[in-house]
């Protein structure tokens, strides 16, 4: 059982919903939003220990949301996820302010492990 609270941001509502159910089954408190605007609203009204952001979001991109989160919530650890491929010869450089970057489909155990690591690394005195 974990006692942290996660905000998941993914425009694939059905995928997000299934992921939320599985993580809640493991005792993790979850909320999700399907776009950047929805995520920012949730951040204004609830406190989270970590945010998981899909790189490709409709409207405001995942990278734009990341920039806002880094500026407005600098203590909130971020994990980015994506099913997106990249241009030939260009990988994805992990931006500043991202703890880790995970490919989709997500390995649930890997996600939980990375979330735990990111939260621990963010604790005062660490």
């Amino acid at each position: 059982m974990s006692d942290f609270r996660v905000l998941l941001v993914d425009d694939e509502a059905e995928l997000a919903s299934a992921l939320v159910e599985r993580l809640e089954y493991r005792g993790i408190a979850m909320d999700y939003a399907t776009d950047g605007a929805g995520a920012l609203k949730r951040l204004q009204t609830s406190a989270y220990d970590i945010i998981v952001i899909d790189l490709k979001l409709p409207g405001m991109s995942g990278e734009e949301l990341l920039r806002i989160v880094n500026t407005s919530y600098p203590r909130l650890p971020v994990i980015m996820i994506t099913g997106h491929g990249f241009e030939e010869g260009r990988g994805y450089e992990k931006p500043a302010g991202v703890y880790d970057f995970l490919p989709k489909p997500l390995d649930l155990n890997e996600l939980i492990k990375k979330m735990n690591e990111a939260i621990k690394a963010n604790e005062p005195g660490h």
Partner: protein
Amino acid sequence: MSPDTDTSHTDLPLHEGLAFTGAITASVTHELNNILGTIDQIAGLLEDLAFTAGQGEPIRPEMMNSYAERINTQTTRGMTLVRQLNAFAHSGDHPETEFDLGNAVENLTGLMRRLAGMQRIELAVTLPDDPVIVRCNPFFLRHLLFLALRGLLASARQKTTLEVALVAREERAMITLQAVREGTPGPIPQPGHLAWLASRLSGEYTEQLDGENIVFCFSIPVLTR
């Protein structure tokens, strides 16, 4: 000089054709990856349910049914995408052939729904009841529509609908793309490519501003109706 021996523009459309194919394939495979990822997570929910049952909890048939329905929904969505991508792949089989223009418009717009959705724009497609048969290169036709749609999407206001309509009138068919514009858009990019494709298709296109809308029209001779 015939179109096939005219090499003055050959390199440009070849590269652009590959880029077009890549853009469509990248978008569709991204969506298929999301579908498979969703099915993977629902399979995980079934595993969790089985684990709970193994601990002595009663099996909940309503949950099983719910998960099965969710998998079916994703499977149907994936099969539609695969069918659309397969039809698109076969559009390059013949440099010239007879085909239903309505099917081609439906195919290309179906493949571009995700790209439009990322811009928060809905695609609404209106097609005639009867087939509209044309004779030309089906791949070039899709490429022309792709360039026009991509240009309109770049100029369109978010949270609006881009309307696509096909109308057949006597000897010509007209495809109209209409979007609500954001600010004052420039012309649709790559007019040289559009003109090249239109000439290869024996068609004509116009692009104009109409109040708040930006309208792209492409007309092409109809073989039979």
